[in-house]
């Protein structure tokens, strides 16, 4: 199963990266092993999103910037409205980074 490194920028990914950084710097962990942990995180996170998450969200907003580079779409929205089943959130500015889902199914 191919994976994206995309989710390393999420909160859980950043927390893991920081932890690994600290442990590598303190010498308790080898950098190679740290990389393996990150790769496993990519897999586990992708899998969990596929299998455990069922919610749907709708996003509306003013598209300030769009960019498609290396098969990654980047959108910067202004005054975006996020709606899911329970709540809705207003955001003045939000960035959306999306990789091509077809890359995983190849």
């Amino acid at each position, binding site marked *: *199963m191919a994976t994206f490194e995309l989710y390393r920028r*999420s*909160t859980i990914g950043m927390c893991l990266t920081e932890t690994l950084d600290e442990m590598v710097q303190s010498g308790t962990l080898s950098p190679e*092993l740290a990389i393996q942990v990150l790769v*496993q995180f990519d897999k*586990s996170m992708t899998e969990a999103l596929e299998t455990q998450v069922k919610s749907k969200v709708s*996003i509306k907003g*003013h598209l300030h910037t769009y960019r498609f580079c290396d098969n990654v779409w980047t959108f910067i929205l202004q005054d975006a409205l996020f709606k899911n089943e329970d709540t809705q959130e207003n955001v003045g500015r939000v960035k959306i980074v999306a*990789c091509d889902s077809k890359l995983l199914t190849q």
Partner: protein
Amino acid sequence: MATSTTSSVYIHVIEDVINKVREEFVNNGGPGDSVLTELQGLWEMKMMHAGVICGPIERSSAPKQPAPGGPITPVHDLNVPYEGTEEYETPTAEILFPPTPLQTPIQTPLPGSAATPLLGSADNSSMYNIPTGPSEYPTPVSDSGGSSDVKGGRQYMPSPSPTPWMSQRPPVVDVNVAYVEGRDEVDRGSSQQPLTQDFFMMSSGKRKREDFATQYHSSGYIPQQDGAGDATPGFLQVSKGSDSLAGRGTVTSAKREMLACGTRSSSKIPQLDGPIPDPYDDVLSTPNIYNYQGVVNEDYNIVNTPAVNELQAGTPAIIAQQDVVDDDDDEPLNENDDDELDDVDQGEELNTHHLVLAQFDKVTRTKSRWKCTLKDGIMHINNKDILFNKATGEFDF
């Protein structure tokens, strides 16, 4: 704040990762289980500090799942260009930025256009559009079609016939197109010369100027001796022309004479003072004076344009001048674009705490309306982590 589902998914991910890397930690001289436990503890602590998982975590004493995944699959390298099938709507880089601008072979003038500056300028208008290259967006077809020519066959091109109607194009100067001085001169100098010669022969008979034909070729300037006139208006012409051109430099003698003769045809001024800088260039860019050019055409003063003078147009000086003009046109536009992008980028990287990470299934655009379907996303919005399986986006640009 963490939604309960997000929290539980995160906890599941942490446990999954820890379990699946356990083998690496314990075997092969790895650092051991204690380091793995330390890793998990630190990770979960940071997550709780970040407020994305609800503690305390019920430690399920690490149920040793038999790692089913087998060997770790290498992460897909996103730096490698994606070479998938073309079935989905997302524009690829080739569509957005074609490698080379299409160029239709319209450099050759239309028959009969050489003698008339009008048609010649119509030619020019289409030439000028070529450097702009294909555009992602449909342009109004009414804009003289010059831009449509070069974009034929591209994805968003509404008008499917790129070149055939070139032949029916009316002799109209496209005033929407920026006039770049010098290009037409190169063009005319190279390709229109024979036609000019033909007209020369034809109407010179009319005007009884055969005597001067050889003289024009050799000397490079025209002593206009067929009509009465004095030199003063000619000089006026010179000063006016050079003022308006503001030192732009080289202009074809061909055009100079066309214009000069055209303006002086009524007063019958012999031009004895050599080539004249040409107000014709300014005329081209203004539609009002264009009508006036029509009068020039009827006057067949084009006869006075010898081929030798035209060849002078193709001097390197003109090409250099062309470059300068191009730079003037292009540079500010590109710089501004880059600056804007950079600003946005930096601003976003520094200031945005709201982030959505996802995979896209489809991204489409109709005019300024964007629609996208995303899946498997993590959103961090207003200090909340929200996961989604599917998301639909509707944006207006």
